[in-house]
C-alpha cells in the first residue's frame, strides 16, 4: 500500500468514526441536540451550571443544588438557603442521581400484553396512546377509581386533589413511614393532627425513644444538623443524648448513654421520667396529666423495663436540669402495639419539661408528615380491592406489595382490579402488577414545588433534559383531564404553566415578593426555596399547648405485648424491624451507590444481616457470618448474623429495605424483606403498621456465609486510632494546659508512662536526665516532633516538591460532629467516579471507598458492653512526609507543590507498594475494570478520570475543585478565599464535621479548628506529618 493510500484510508476511517460518535446521543433524537457552535447562553462547555431543586427521595424535602455540565446532572448537594438541608444532604439524597440514571428505569409508556410469567409482557406505547388508554379506563370506571399516591404537598397536591374531584376518582395518600403514632398522640393530647418541627439545635438534653432522627425520622438532614449543633462540644459545653431502646440504631449509637429498656416498655419509662420531672417542677406543666403521673410507680416501671430505678432518676435529673431539653419518639424503630402510648408519654414528658414553644412547637409543623392515611386505612382499601369495588387503580409511590406482610394478600387484592396504572419510573413489586405504565420524570427532570414544613416553599426544577422518554405526571394528569373533558380550576396547558400560575396567585403574595412575577420567579428559582410567614421559629418561644384530658384518657399506658414464638426448636427472641438509613423503607434499594455503601452500623453491603446480641450469640455458639434460620408465625428467613454489642440479649433486629423481588438489577433478590416475617397488625389507636410485633425462633443452621463487608472489626484493639477525652479535660485543654492521659501519645508512650513513671514525663517522653544519660552513652535520644499541619514542613526538612510559597491544604475533622452517617462516602463516589465493585468483590476486600467511616465500639468490654461508640472518617491524610511517595518506582505517587500526595493514574503501573506502605490504608486498588451500565456512565464527572484495572487510587482532597477555584480566582485576579474550596465530603456532611482550607494561613478556619486543644493526628508517632487534624471526641459529659 502506498503511503498516500494509507493516509486516505486512515482519514476516511477516522472521519466515519467521528460522525458515528456525533450521532450517538443516547436516545435523544438528533434535532434536540444542543448546538454548541451557537450555544445556550448559560451553557459553556467545561463550565458547570448549577440548578436548585428539591430532593424528593424521602418526604423530608431537602433543598438541593445540582451541578450540571454540558446538560447532564453530575452531582447533588444541599441548598444552603434551605432551612431543611442547610446545604447538606444524606447519602440517599446524594444517590438521587442513581435514580435519575438508573439503568432499570421504565424507558417509556408501556402496556401489559401478556401475563406476568411472560419474558417481556410489555408493549411500547406512544404517550398519546397511553394517555388515551388511561382516559378510557377512567371513563369506564368512573366512581370506582382510586388514586393511591404518596404524600405530595404544594401545587401537585392541589392538582391531584382537583383532578380526582373532577374525574370522580377517590384519592388515598399513603407513605410507609407516616408517623401515625406521633400524629395520633398529638391529635388526642393537643388537638393537632400533625408533627411539630423539632429544634434539636436548642436542645441540650435529648431523650430518644426509638426515633432514628439521624437516619430517616421525619426530617433527618435538618435534625442531624440541629442535633450536632446542640450536642457537639463547643465552648466548654456539650449536650447529652439518652437512647432508651432495646437495639441501638445509628442515632442511638450517637448517644452518650444507652439505656437498654425492654421492648414495649417505653411508655412506662417515659411516664416515670415525666413524673420525676414534674415532681421537681412542683407539678407545673403537668396539667391534665397530673393525676396520671401521680399514679406512676417509678420502681415498677424500672423493673418492667429491666433497668435500675436510679437510671430513671438520673435521666429525670438531667432532663429537668437541661432547661431546654427534648424528648422524641417513636419512629418505625419502636412502632409496636402500643406506639401511640410512647408518643403520648413523650408528649407529656416534653410538656412537663416545658419544651413546647421552645424545642418544639405546633406553630411550625412538618407539613409532609401530616396527611397520610394509616396502615389500617390501607387495609380497608385492600379489602375494597379484594371485593371488586375498585375498577381502576392508579398508583404513584406506595409499594404495598413489598411493604405489607403476606397476610394482607396485596397480590390477591391487586389481581381483582381490572385496570391498574402506575406512574412509577421503576418496575417495583407493585408496578410490576400494573396494566399500564406511565413512567413519571425523575424529580431532577421535573417541574414542581414542595412544602416540607410550615412557611417553607421549595422549588422542584428540572436540571436536565429527560434521560428516557418519560412524561411529567402533572402533564399526564392535565392531558387526561382534557381528554376526559373535565374542567379543573386554574387549568393550564402544561404543569409548568399550572405551577407558575399557582405561585403567581399564592406564593408571591404570601412571601411578600414585590414587583413583576417574572423577575420574582427567576429570583425564586435561583434561591430554590421561598420562605413565607411562619417559617422561622417564633422569637421568645410560642405558647405551650395544654394537654387535653379526654384524649389522655383514651390512651393505655401499658407495656406492649408481642406474639409468642412459633413452636419449634431454637432461641425465642423478639424481632425488631427498623428502617434503613440507606434504603429508607425499601424505595432506595435499586441504587448501586447505596447498596455499595456500608451500613453505618453493621457495615455490611448489598445484603441483610440479623443483628443479635453478643451474649445471645455466644450462648447459641454464633459468630459473625454464621447463618441462622429465623422463624415467626408468619414466615421464615435464612440469613447470617452480625453480633451487635449495642442490643439487649432478648431481641434480634432486622433492617427494612431489602428483599425485593424485581425492582431492578441492584435490588432484585438481595437480602430479606422484614415484612415477610410479620403479620398484618395495625396499632389499634393510630392504625399504624406494627413493626415490632413478633417473637422469632432463631436456630443456627451450622453454615457460614462470607458477608459482603470489608471491615469486620468492632474494636480498635488498643491502637488508639480514635481518641476521646472527658469533658473536664477538654475544658482544661482548651485553656492550653497539658493534661496527663490526654496527651497525643502513642500506645508505646502510654505504656512507657505507666511502666516507668520515674523516667518519663506525662507525655511519655524521657525526662531530661534520662535523655542526657542516653546521649552520653551514644544512644539515641527521642526527639519531640511537632507534627501539626501548620508546622509543616519542619525546619531542615525537604519534602518532595513542596514549596513554601504555596498553600498547604489541610483538613480538621471534629469527631464530636461526626455522627457516622456516611453521606460523605456517597458524595465522594459521586464526585470522583469511584467504581461499584459489587457484593462478591466487597466480601473479598476490594471496596473502593476513598473515605470510610470507621465505627469502633469503645470501653473495657467493647465487644459485649461498650461504653460508647467512636466514628472516625478516614481518608488520605495527605501526609507531609508521606510513606507512599518514596516507594513508588515510577513517580505515580508524588508530592505536589501545594503539599498534596498526588496519584497520577496514567503513570501507575500497579506495584501496590504505596498501599502496602500507607499506615492509614486509604489507598485502594482497581483489581478489575469496573463497569457503569448505560446510562449510569452519564453521571461520571468529566473533571475526574475514570480508572481502569491495575491502577491505584485514593482521595485527592477533590483536587479538581481546588484547581477550579484557583483558576477562577486567577481569572479574577485575586487569591483563593478561605472556604471557597469545599471537598465533596465536607460539603455534604450534615454535622459540618469536616473543615478544609489552607492551614498555612493562620486566619483560615481550618487552622483555627486544628489548633484546638482536642486536636490530634492519627498515627502521628510514625512521623508521617498528616494534614488532617482530628478533634477528640468528648465522652463523659458529666460535670467533673
Amino acid at each position, binding site marked *: 500500500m502506498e503511503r498516500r493510500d494509507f493516509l486516505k484510508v486512515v482519514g476516511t476511517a477516522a472521519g466515519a468514526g467521528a460522525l458515528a460518535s456525533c450521532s450517538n446521543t443516547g436516545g435523544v433524537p438528533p434535532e434536540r441536540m444542543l448546538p454548541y457552535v451557537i450555544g445556550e447562553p448559560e451553557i459553556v462547555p467545561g463550565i458547570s451550571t448549577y440548578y436548585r431543586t428539591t430532593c424528593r427521595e424521602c418526604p423530608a424535602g431537602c433543598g438541593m443544588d445540582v451541578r450540571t455540565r454540558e446538560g447532564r446532572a453530575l452531582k447533588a448537594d444541599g441548598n444552603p438557603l434551605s432551612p431543611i438541608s442547610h446545604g447538606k444532604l444524606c447519602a440517599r439524597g446524594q444517590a438521587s442521581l442513581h435514580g435519575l440514571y438508573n439503568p432499570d428505569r421504565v424507558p417509556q409508556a408501556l402496556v401489559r400484553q401478556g401475563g406476568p410469567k411472560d419474558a417481556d409482557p410489555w408493549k411500547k406505547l406512544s404517550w398519546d396512546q397511553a394517555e388515551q388508554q388511561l382516559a378510557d379506563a377512567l371513563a369506564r370506571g368512573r366512581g370506582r377509581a382510586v388514586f393511591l399516591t404518596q404524600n405530595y404537598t404544594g401545587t401537585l397536591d392541589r392538582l391531584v386533589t382537583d383532578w380526582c374531584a373532577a374525574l370522580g376518582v377517590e384519592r388515598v395518600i399513603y407513605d410507609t413511614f407516616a408517623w401515625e403514632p406521633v400524629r395520633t398522640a398529638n391529635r388526642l393530647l393537643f388537638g393537632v393532627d400533625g408533627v411539630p418541627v423539632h429544634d434539636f439545635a436548642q436542645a441540650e438534653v435529648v431523650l430518644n425513644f426509638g426515633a432514628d432522627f439521624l437516619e430517616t425520622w421525619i426530617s433527618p438532614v435538618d435534625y442531624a444538623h440541629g442535633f450536632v449543633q446542640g450536642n457537639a462540644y463547643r465552648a466548654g459545653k456539650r449536650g447529652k443524648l439518652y437512647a432508651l431502646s432495646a437495639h441501638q440504631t445509628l442515632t442511638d449509637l450517637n448517644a452518650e448513654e444507652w439505656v437498654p429498656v425492654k421492648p414495649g416498655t417505653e411508655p412506662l419509662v417515659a411516664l416515670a421520667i415525666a413524673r420525676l420531672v414534674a415532681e421537681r417542677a412542683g407539678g407545673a406543666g403537668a396539667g391534665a396529666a397530673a393525676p396520671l403521673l401521680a399514679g406512676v410507680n417509678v420502681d415498677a416501671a424500672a423493673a418492667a423495663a429491666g433497668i435500675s430505678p436510679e437510671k430513671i432518676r438520673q435521666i429525670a435529673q438531667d432532663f429537668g436540669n437541661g432547661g431546654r431539653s427534648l424528648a422524641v419518639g417513636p419512629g418505625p424503630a419502636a412502632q409496636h402495639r402500643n406506639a401511640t402510648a410512647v408518643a403520648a408519654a413523650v408528649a407529656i414528658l416534653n410538656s412537663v419539661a416545658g419544651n413546647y414553644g421552645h424545642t418544639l412547637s405546633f406553630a411550625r409543623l412538618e407539613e409532609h408528615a401530616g396527611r397520610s392515611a394509616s396502615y389500617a386505612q390501607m387495609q380497608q382499601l385492600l379489602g375494597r380491592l379484594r371485593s371488586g369495588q375498585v375498577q381502576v387503580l392508579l398508583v404513584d409511590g406506595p409499594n404495598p406489595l413489598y411493604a405489607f406482610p403476606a397476610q394482607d394478600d396485596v397480590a390477591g387484592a391487586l389481581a381483582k382490579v381490572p385496570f391498574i396504572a402506575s406512574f412509577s419510573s421503576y418496575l417495583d413489586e407493585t408496578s410490576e402488577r400494573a396494566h399500564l405504565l406511565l413512567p413519571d420524570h425523575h424529580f431532577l427532570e421535573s417541574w414542581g414545588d414542595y412544602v416540607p414544613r410550615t412557611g417553607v416553599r421549595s422549588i422542584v426544577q428540572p436540571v436536565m433534559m429527560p434521560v428516557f422518554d418519560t412524561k411529567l405526571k402533572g402533564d399526564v394528569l392535565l392531558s387526561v383531564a382534557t381528554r376526559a373533558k373535565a374542567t379543573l380550576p386554574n387549568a393550564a396547558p402544561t404543569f409548568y404553566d399550572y405551577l407558575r400560575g399557582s405561585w403567581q396567585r399564592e406564593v408571591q403574595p404570601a412571601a411578600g415578593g414585590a414587583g413583576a412575577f417574572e423577575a420574582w420567579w427567576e429570583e425564586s428559582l435561583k434561591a430554590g426555596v421561598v420562605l413565607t410567614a411562619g417559617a422561622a421559629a417564633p422569637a421568645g418561644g410560642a405558647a405551650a399547648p395544654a394537654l387535653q384530658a379526654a384524649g389522655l384518657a383514651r390512651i393505655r399506658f401499658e407495656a406492649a405485648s408481642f406474639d409468642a414464638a412459633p413452636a419449634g426448636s431454637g432461641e425465642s427472641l423478639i424481632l425488631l424491624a427498623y428502617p434503613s438509613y440507606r434504603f429508607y423503607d425499601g424505595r432506595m434499594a435499586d441504587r448501586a451507590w447505596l447498596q455499595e455503601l456500608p451500613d453505618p452500623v453493621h457495615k455490611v453491603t448489598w445484603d441483610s444481616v440479623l443483628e443479635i446480641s453478643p451474649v445471645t450469640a455466644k450462648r447459641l455458639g454464633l459468630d459473625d457470618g454464621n447463618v441462622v434460620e429465623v422463624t415467626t408465625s408468619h414466615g421464615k428467613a435464612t440469613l447470617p448474623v452480625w453480633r451487635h454489642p449495642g442490643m439487649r440479649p432478648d431481641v434480634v433486629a432486622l433492617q427494612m429495605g431489602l428483599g425485593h423481588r424485581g425492582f431492578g438489577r441492584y435490588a432484585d433478590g438481595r437480602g430479606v424483606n422484614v415484612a415477610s416475617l410479620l403479620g398484618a397488625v395495625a396499632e389499634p389507636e393510630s392504625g399504624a403498621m406494627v413493626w415490632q410485633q413478633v417473637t422469632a425462633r432463631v436456630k443456627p443452621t451450622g453454615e457460614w456465609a462470607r458477608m459482603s463487608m470489608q471491615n469486620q472489626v468492632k474494636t480498635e484493639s488498643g491502637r488508639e486510632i480514635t481518641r476521646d477525652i472527658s469533658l473536664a479535660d477538654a475544658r482544661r485543654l482548651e485553656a492550653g494546659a497539658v493534661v496527663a492521659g490526654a496527651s497525643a501519645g502513642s500506645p508505646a508512650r502510654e*505504656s512507657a508512662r505507666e511502666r516507668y513513671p520515674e523516667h518519663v514525663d506525662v507525655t511519655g517522653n524521657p525526662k531530661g536526665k534520662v535523655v542526657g544519660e542516653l546521649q552520653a552513652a551514644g544512644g539515641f535520644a527521642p526527639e519531640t516532633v511537632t507534627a501539626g499541619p501548620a508546622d509543616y514542613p519542619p525546619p531542615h526538612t525537604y519534602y518532595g516538591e513542596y514549596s513554601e510559597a504555596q498553600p498547604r491544604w489541610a483538613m480538621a475533622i471534629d469527631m464530636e460532629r461526626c455522627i457516622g452517617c456516611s453521606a460523605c462516602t456517597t458524595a465522594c463516589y459521586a464526585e470522583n467516579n469511584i467504581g461499584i465493585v459489587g457484593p462478591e468483590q466487597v466480601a473479598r476486600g476490594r471496596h473502593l471507598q476513598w473515605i470510610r467511616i470507621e465505627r469502633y465500639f469503645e470501653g473495657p468490654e467493647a465487644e459485649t458492653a461498650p461504653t460508647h461508640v467512636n466514628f472516625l472518617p478516614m481518608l488520605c491524610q495527605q501526609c507531609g512526609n508521606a510513606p507512599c511517595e518514596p516507594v513508588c518506582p515510577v513517580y505515580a505517587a508524588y508530592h505536589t507543590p501545594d503539599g498534596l500526595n498526588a496519584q497520577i493514574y496514567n503513570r501507575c503501573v500497579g506495584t501496590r507498594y504505596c498501599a502496602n506502605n500507607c499506615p492509614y490504608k486509604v489507598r485502594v486498588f482497581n483489581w478489575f475494570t469496573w463497569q457503569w451500565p448505560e446510562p449510569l456512565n452519564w453521571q461520571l464527572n468529566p473533571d475526574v478520570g475514570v480508572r481502569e484495572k491495575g491502577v491505584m487510587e485514593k482521595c485527592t482532597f477533590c483536587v479538581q475543585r481546588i484547581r477550579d477555584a484557583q483558576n477562577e480566582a486567577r481569572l479574577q485576579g485575586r487569591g483563593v478565599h478561605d472556604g471557597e474550596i469545599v471537598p465533596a465530603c465536607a460539603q455534604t456532611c450534615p454535622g459540618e464535621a469536616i473543615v478544609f482550607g489552607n492551614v498555612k494561613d493562620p486566619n483560615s478556619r481550618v487552622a483555627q479548628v486544628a489548633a484546638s486543644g482536642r486536636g490530634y493526628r492519627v498515627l502521628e508517632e510514625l512521623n508521617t506529618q498528616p494534614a488532617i487534624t482530628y478533634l477528640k471526641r468528648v465522652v463523659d459529659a458529666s460535670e467533673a
Partner: protein
Amino acid sequence: MATVVRSETHPDIGSYEDVNRDILKLLSRPGRGYRILLALAIAGVIALFTAWGLQIVLGIGMSGLRNPIGWGVYITTFVFWVGIAHSGTLISAILYLFRARWRQSIYRAAEAMTVFAVMTAGLFPVIHVGRPWLAYYLMPYPNQRMIWPNFRSPLVWDVFAVGTYFTVSATFFYIGMIPDLAAARDSAIVPWRKKLYSTLSLGWRGTNWEWKHFTRAYLYLAALATPLVLSVHSVVSWDFAMSLVPGWHSTVFAPYFVAGAIYSGLAMVLTLLIPIRKIFGLEAYFTTRHVEQMAKVMLLTSLIVSYAYLCEAFTAWYTFEPAEQTGGYLMFGATGEYWWSAWLMLTCNAFVPQLLWFRQVRRSIPAMFVITLFVNIGMWFERYSIIVLSLSHEYEPWMWNQYRPSLTGMIIILGSFGWFLMWFLLFLRVLPAVSVAELKEVLPPPLRRLRAGPATLRRPRGGAEEVRP
C-alpha cells in the same frame, strides 16, 4: 610428595576419558523418563502463560489479592526464586575464590540453576503488577517525557540488583562453559549440535594463551560475582525493610535474607542433584562428600535464620508497639489465622534442619533429600509469612483482612516450577552439566607417565595442556 592415583573427592573416577564419556553422554539421546518430565514441565509453562494471559485480560484481581494485602504469593515466589538463585554463585564464585576442592562437579548445575531461577524470579514482578504492559516504566530509558524512575524506591533498586545479578551470573555461567563447549563440539555428531557448540565455543582450541586469559577472566568474574551474592538479596530484603509496615521494617532483614537465600539455594541444589545423580548414574561425580559439605553450610545458615526469627520476635516484643507485636509472626502469626504458615516456616527451617548435627544424617542421601524438601517448603512459607502476615495486620484495625491465594495464583506458581524445570532439563541435554575441564583439574592426570615408570607427581593445578577432548 604424595603419589596421586585417585582423587580425594572423586575416588571412583578412573581417568580423563571416563569424565569425557560420562559427562558428554548426557548430551546424547534422552530416555523416556526425561521426556515425560520435560512434557510435564512444558505443560506447566503452558498453564503458566494461560493463567497469566487470563489475568492480564481480566485484571490482577484474579490473583486473589485484595486491599490491604497488595503483595501475596507472587512476591513470595519472586523472593523464593531469587533466594534459590543464590547458591549457584555461592558455589561457583565464592568457593572458587576459597579454592574449595569439592565444588567442581556441582558448580555448573548450580550455576545453571542460578540463571534459570533468576529467569523465573524475573517473571514475577511483571506477573504481579496491575498493568504489566507498562512494566517498562521501571527501566531508566530515555524518553520524551523526561521521566526517570524514582531512584528512592526499593523496587527500582530491585530492578537493578536482579538485572545485574542475572547479567553477571549468566556471563559467568557462559564463560566458564567455553572449554566444555569445545569438548562437546569435538565429540558432537548431530549436525545442529555441532553447529551450536561450534558457535558457542567461540573457536576454543585449548591453547596455552587461551587458557591463560580464560583463567584470568574466570577469576575476575568470580570476584565480581561474589559481592552480588550479598547485595542482591540485601536489596530484595530492602523491598520490605525500607517500608513502614510492622513486621517488615527491621534492620535484621538484609543478613537474614542473605542467609535464608543461601540456605534455600543449597537446599534446592541438593533437591535437584540427588535425583539427577541417581538417574544419570553420576554417583562417582556427585558424592556423599558433596552432600555432607553442603549440609554443613545449610546447618550454619539454618542457625542464622533461626536466630533472625528470634531477633524479630524479640524486637517486636521489646517495642511495646501493639502494631509491631501483632504485626509479625510473633503473636498474630503463630496464633492467628495464618498460624499454619508461621508454624510451617518454623518447623521446616528451624526445627527439622537440627537433624544435620548428626553425621549419619548428613551422609544419608535419602534423609538429605527429604530434609531439603522441607527446607524448600519452609523457605517459601517464610516469605509468605513475612509478606502476607504483616500486610494483613497493620496499624489500622479497620483495614485488617485475610488473604487466600486464588486458583490463578496457584497455577502461576506451579507453572513457574514448570518453567524452571523446563530450562533445567533442556540445559541437561544441551549443555555440559558438569564442568569437564575443571573436574579434570582435581583428577590425577592421565597415567601415561605412571605406565612409563613410578614418578612423583605434583597435585594437578590447572594443567591446561593435558586436556584432551
